[in-house]
Structure formats: structure tokens, C-alpha cells
């Protein structure tokens, strides 16, 4: 029993356990401390690239960037290009959330990021993006579609180099329209044409489960509701969301009124179904293919995503089966059709040292030359389904490969761009977009009247952005105009047509 009993082992096993635990704790603590103390300085040696990764295209991005940067890296041996995602975002809005979070700290911000064009304002507003004017010359800027570059230019400052554009249009199922007694090719002249066609389809094929029309609505479809659906129609009224003259949002105007009215009509009469918006683009793709959907107001990307040979619901004889046509203006007024232009562009993080910016800009220009713009938009490419924003892209031999099965679509989609609108390049747009989605669902799902929905809409803008963010109602403006008109002794009817025309041109002027 004594300490030097020969039967007693000298070693203490427990000590080993204690040491193991202490080591584990130390390791954990050490790693945490390491992370705390060691903040890697941003080095120009690596240019990190962020771009949205939906589905599995992370590898596609890496491939694309490898190919694009090979030559450039050769001439800049000290610089490495690295793709960093972020990949946990599964929809556009989540990508923005993610990017917001990443760019809030220098240590996590990517050097170059692909930016949804409409987001440019929000970012430039918070100083995240570097101005690029000094790195691009007029030969570059004049070659880019203005509806694209305009979205990335805030107060004459260029914050991004457009890489891809998309537009919105109407797809229709030829056989369904024929069965409903509508002459094809179908070219609706105004909104009434669309509603009438939907009604005809509903009367003839509604009982067979055919959905006459789709237009996106509601919060769940996110930007598909605001951009692809609502604004596509709205800008055909000659009105918009934002009053550039006083930098306030419209809480009400004839355009908002008419567009919500359109939603109210098509959904309350059962011409359109709200559920399709729960899975944006997916169900439309499937229903179009299966002949269960007559007309779809949707994006140019639908072809590449859904119906092209390797899409999700490939349609073999696409041009015969599906027709395409432009979205008409509300009453068929000039310029007769309209489209929403969206897209993505390359932007530079403003937090990197100024000395490094020229090198990064040089890489960005390579990234955005005409050939690379086409390559990134090719089928299977990282931004497949979009169009190159460079005007001279049509002359490039690769251009026809954008839609190899139906090159006529290339020119059709590109042709739409000239009457293109884009979302107000204003920092608060993303919030308005969300509020707008709620207004849509109030009308569609909640059964609110248009005027109730608009009252809530303008109230929500005030609570979210602070009171005074809503432009004085159009009614008030009209009253002023009316006084002016009466003073001039003109008839009300004439003036109101004139007013529409003037407003319309004013908008064109402001928006283009």
C-alpha cells in the first residue's frame, strides 16, 4: 500500500486524458484566436470574383474564368484569379443579401463581383462600388446598349461593365391559340387584345385545365413578380415607379393603377393562376411544353433555361410550337411595344487600395470584351440564355451560336432592346420591389381592390423609407395640370391624350 510498493505502476493514465482534453480545448481556442488575430490583408495577388451560383454552375464559373483569364494572367504573372461564389444563395434576392453581407467587411469582400444591374444604385449608394469612368473610354461605352449601361451609371458615374442583358416578352402556344380561334402569328396591339385572347382560351379550353395566361405576382416569386411581371406591364402605360424630378416614389399614378387593374382582371376572372408564381419559371416551362398554358409574359432567358435542347423542358420544334411577340403598350400607343431590360455587369469593390484598381480594371475589361460577353451567354455558359450587351456583338461569328437551334430568336430578343426600360437605378429600389410584391398579392390573393392596395402600398413606402418618400399623388399633379389646361381653354379630352403623350415622352427621356 505504500508509495514504493513494487506492485504499483508508476504512470498515471488520467493525466493522459486530461492532456488530451486540454489539447483539444487549446486547439479550438487557438484556431479561434488565430482567426481573431490574423486578418489577411487584401493583396492584389489574388483577384477574387463573386457571381451568383444557381444550381451547379460553380464549376461552370470556374471554367469560364479560367479560360478568360488564361491570356491575361500570362501577361500579369503576379496576379491570380479566383472564383469565390457565394453559393449559398438560391435566388436573386438571396444573392444580394449575401453580397451585402460580404461587402460589409474588407476581409470578406470580393474584388470583382457580378452585379444585377438594378442593384448598382443600392451599392454605389453605400460606397461599395468603385467608379470606373477613368478606366473605360468612349469606344467601349458607345458600343454597349444604353439600356444596359444606363442601369449601371448613376449620376454619370459608371459603376459596372454590363456582361449580359435579358428582356421580357410574350410567349404563346400556337396550337392553343389556334384551337381558341385566335389567328397566329398573334401580335397583340394593346392590353385588351391580351385579355380578349385569354378570355377566348378560357372559354374554349378552360374546362380542360388549360391556364390561359401567366404573369408573375407575389412575394414568393420575388423579382420575377416585380420585374418580369409588374414592371413589364407598367412601363407600357407610360408611367413608372419613381419620380426622378423630386426623387420620390409614386404611391399612386395612372400606370400603377392600370397595371394593378390588369392583375385584378386576369386573376379575378380566372384567366391567370396565382400558384404558378410559387415556382417562378419552372412551372411555366413545363406547362408551355405540355400545352397547358396559353400565353406567358416572361423573360428571354426562358428559352435557354427551359426549352432549348438541354433545358429543363426541351421543346424540339420550338418555333412551330411556341410563338414569340413583344409586350404591347397599354392602349397601343407609340412606341407600340415595351420590354424590361435586366442583366448583370461586372463591378469593382471600392475597398481595395487605389493603386490596385487599374490592374483590376484591366482584368475587368478583358472579362467584358465582346467575345467574352458572347461566350458567357452561350448555352451551357455561366450566364446562358442572356444576350451580349455590346452592340457589335451581332457582327461576331459566335453570335448565331447563342441560340443554335433557332438563331432568329437572337435577333428578335436583341431587337426588343431598343424599346427597353429598366428599373429605377435608386438605392431603395429593392425595398420598393418587395413592397410592390406585397401590393400585387393583396390584389391577387387577398382580394383587395386596386385603390385599397395602392393605399397600403404608399403607406408601406412611408413606413419603410420614412415619411415623405412618396411623391405627391398624381391626382394633385393632375389638378395643377388641369388648371393650366383650363387656362389655355383646351378641351379636357384632348389635353388628357396630350398629357399622356407628353408624360410618355418625358419618361422616355428620363429613362433612356
Amino acid at each position, binding site marked *: 500500500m505504500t508509495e514504493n510498493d513494487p506492485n504499483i505502476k508508476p504512470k498515471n493514465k*488520467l493525466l493522459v*486524458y*486530461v492532456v488530451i*482534453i486540454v489539447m*483539444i480545448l487549446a486547439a*479550438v481556442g487557438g*484556431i*479561434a484566436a488565430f*482567426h*481573431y488575430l*490574423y*486578418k489577411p490583408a487584401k493583396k492584389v495577388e489574388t483577384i477574387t470574383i463573386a457571381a451568383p*451560383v*444557381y*444550381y*451547379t454552375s*460553380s*464549376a461552370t464559373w470556374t471554367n469560364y474564368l479560367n479560360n478568360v483569364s488564361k491570356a491575361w494572367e500570362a501577361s500579369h504573372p503576379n496576379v491570380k484569379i479566383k472564383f*469565390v*461564389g*457565394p*453559393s*449559398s*444563395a*438560391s*435566388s436573386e434576392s*438571396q444573392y444580394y443579401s*449575401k453580397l451585402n*453581407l*460580404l461587402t*460589409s*467587411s474588407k*476581409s*470578406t469582400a470580393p474584388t470583382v463581383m457580378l452585379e444585377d444591374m438594378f442593384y448598382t444604385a443600392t451599392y454605389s449608394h453605400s460606397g461599395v462600388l468603385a467608379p470606373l469612368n477613368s478606366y473605360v473610354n468612349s469606344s467601349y461605352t458607345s458600343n454597349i446598349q444604353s439600356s444596359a449601361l444606363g442601369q449601371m451609371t448613376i449620376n454619370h458615374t459608371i459603376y459596372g461593365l454590363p456582361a449580359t442583358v435579358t428582356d421580357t416578352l410574350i410567349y404563346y402556344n400556337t396550337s392553343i391559340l389556334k384551337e381558341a380561334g385566335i389567328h397566329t402569328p398573334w401580335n397583340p396591339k394593346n392590353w385588351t387584345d391580351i385579355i380578349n385572347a385569354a378570355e377566348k382560351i378560357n372559354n374554349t379550353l378552360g374546362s380542360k385545365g388549360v391556364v390561359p395566361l401567366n404573369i408573375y405576382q407575389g412575394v414568393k416569386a420575388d423579382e420575377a413578380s416585380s420585374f418580369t411581371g409588374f414592371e413589364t406591364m407598367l412601363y407600357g402605360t407610360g408611367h413608372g415607379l419613381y419620380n426622378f424630378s423630386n426623387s420620390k416614389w409614386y404611391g399612386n399614378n395612372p400606370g400603377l393603377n392600370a397595371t394593378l387593374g390588369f392583375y385584378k382582371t386576369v386573376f379575378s376572372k380566372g384567366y391567370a393562376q396565382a400558384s404558378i408564381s410559387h*415556382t*417562378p*419559371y*419552372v*412551372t411555366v416551362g*413545363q406547362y408551355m411544353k405540355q400545352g397547358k398554358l396559353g400565353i406567358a409574359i416572361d423573360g428571354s*432567358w426562358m428559352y435557354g*433555361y*427551359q426549352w432549348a435542347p438541354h*433545358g*429543363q*423542358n426541351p421543346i424540339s420544334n420550338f418555333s412551330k410550337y411556341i410563338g414569340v411577340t413583344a409586350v404591347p403598350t397599354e392602349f397601343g400607343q407609340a412606341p407600340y411595344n415595351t420590354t424590361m431590360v435586366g442583366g448583370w455587369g461586372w463591378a469593382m469593390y471600392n475597398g481595395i487600395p487605389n493603386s490596385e484598381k487599374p490592374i483590376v480594371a484591366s482584368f475587368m475589361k478583358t472579362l467584358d470584351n465582346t467575345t467574352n460577353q458572347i461566350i458567357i451567354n452561350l448555352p451551357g455558359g455561366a450566364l446562358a440564355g442572356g444576350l451580349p450587351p455590346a452592340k457589335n456583338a451581332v457582327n461576331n461569328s459566335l453570335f448565331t451560336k447563342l441560340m443554335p437551334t433557332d438563331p432568329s430568336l437572337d435577333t428578335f430578343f436583341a431587337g426588343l432592346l431598343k424599346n427597353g426600360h429598366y428599373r429605377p437605378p435608386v438605392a431603395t429600389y429593392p425595398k420598393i420591389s418587395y413592397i410592390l410584391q406585397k401590393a400585387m398579392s393583396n390584389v391577387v390573393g387577398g382580394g383587395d381592390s386596386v385603390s385599397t392596395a395602392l393605399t397600403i402600398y404608399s403607406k408601406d413606402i412611408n413606413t419603410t423609407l420614412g415619411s415623405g418618400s412618396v411623391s405627391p399623388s398624381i391626382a394633385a399633379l393632375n389638378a395643377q395640370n388641369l388648371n393650366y389646361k383650363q387656362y389655355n381653354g383646351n378641351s379636357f379630352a384632348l389635353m388628357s391624350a396630350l398629357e399622356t403623350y407628353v408624360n410618355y415622352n418625358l419618361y422616355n427621356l428620363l429613362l433612356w
Partner: protein
Amino acid sequence: MIKIKLRFVVVYLVLTLLALAFLIPFIWLFVESFSPLNNVGFTIPNRFTLDPFRNVLTNGTFIRSIYMGLIQSLGATFLSVMFAIGPAYVFSRKSFKLKTPLMLGVLLLTGFPVFSLLVPTFIFFIDIGLYNTVIGVILFLGVLNLPIDIWIMKNSFDQIPKSIERASIVDGAGTLKSLFYVFIPLTLPIMAVLIILNFVINWGNFYVPFILLSSSHLLPISVRIYSFFGAFSVRYNELAALSIIYTVPAVILYIFAQKYMIKALSGGIKG
């Protein structure tokens, strides 16, 4: 006698119907995962195929996400269990001044609505450089299960008779030795359940890695699946196949642990 039998028939019938109803949501998952179609709705395909599974299992990104899911779930499980043992032992066997307030504090944290902490944690992680790191996700997932682990483990320690503890002390084991040689080995079944429970909770956690990670190669399977679903271009059959691959380990572990889980939870009630 007949009356009693009838009563039992009704019980069996009701439970069978309930179980069948519970299986309804799985119908789509199974049909779709073996389907060449790609349908968010329900259609019985003309033929069945293993292609969705093949595509998913040969896709490096998905394999990697399973691997990341394993690392993060196991790492966090390890941390919570390691850090829970000591306090659970002391709470169970010692009495001291601050015991009640401390235990109440731990109890309050067990049901904490964690989602509300993600935004501040995110800001905090950016500050200390843990954002977008696997270790950061592991540390945060680990701390979330820690309070409930302390409770369950304390309850299982409570069930060890006092005399066994005393025997080990008289036999010459100090506090630490008796913890290692007697308490931990004795509660191994419950510890195993706890590890399974932790693993499954971490494995199923979606929003923690969703918010705390951004790099593609770090994403665990839970986030991958969601990204899959949310994307504009979804292959639903592959989504279903991946979901099955994602769900099966959790389900197997649960069924395996079911017997012990009742014990572990009833321990929880006794506390």
C-alpha cells in the same frame, strides 16, 4: 369479449390510417426521385430510372456538400458533447451556491429561438474573422446544442445510484476518475443517443450554414438542397434523389436510437 375486440380493431385501424397519412408526403419524393420526368407536381412516370441518383452521386459538388455536411455536423456534435459533460456532472452531483440560478440559465437557453441570433452572430463573425469558415459554423452549431446536452446528460447522471458513486470514491477514484471510469461509461447508451440527436439536428440545420457561409466549396448538403429548390432552373427529380440521400442517414439513426431515445427523454422529464 367481442366488445373488447371491436375496440381494439378501431384502435389499430385509426393508427394504421394515421401512419398511412404520414406517408403521403413521401410519395412524391420517392416517385419523383426514380422518375425521368421533372415535376414539382405529382405524375406517375411511364418508366422508372436510377438516373437522378446516378447524376447526383456522380456530381462532385453534391458529394462535396455531403462531406461538408458530415464535417460540420460531427464537429459541432463533438464540441457540444465535450463541453457538456463536465458541467452536467457537477450539476448532477455537487451542490453549491449558484447551482439553481446557473441551471435555470442553462434551461432558458435550451429552448432559445436561435434564428433570432443569426444576424448578430453574422456581424460578430465578420468582426472576428470566423465568417465563411467551417470552424465558425462548427463553433456556432456546437454552442446551440450545448444547453440541451447539459440537461440531458445531467439527467442521465442523476440516474446513477448514489451508492455507485460512493463505491467508486471509497475504491480510490477521485472526482475526475469516477467521472471517466464510472459516470461516462455508465451513461454511454444515453450519450450515444445524445450524439445521434445532436448529429441529426446539426445535419438538418439549414439556416446557420446558409447565413454563416458563402463559399461554394464549404456549403453543406442542407444548403445545397435548398439552393436547388430555390433556383429558377430546378431538376426536381435530382432534387428528390438528393433529398432522399440527405434524409436517409437521419432516419436510420433515429430508428436505431428510438429505444434509447425514450429513455433519454424520460430522463429529461424526471429532471
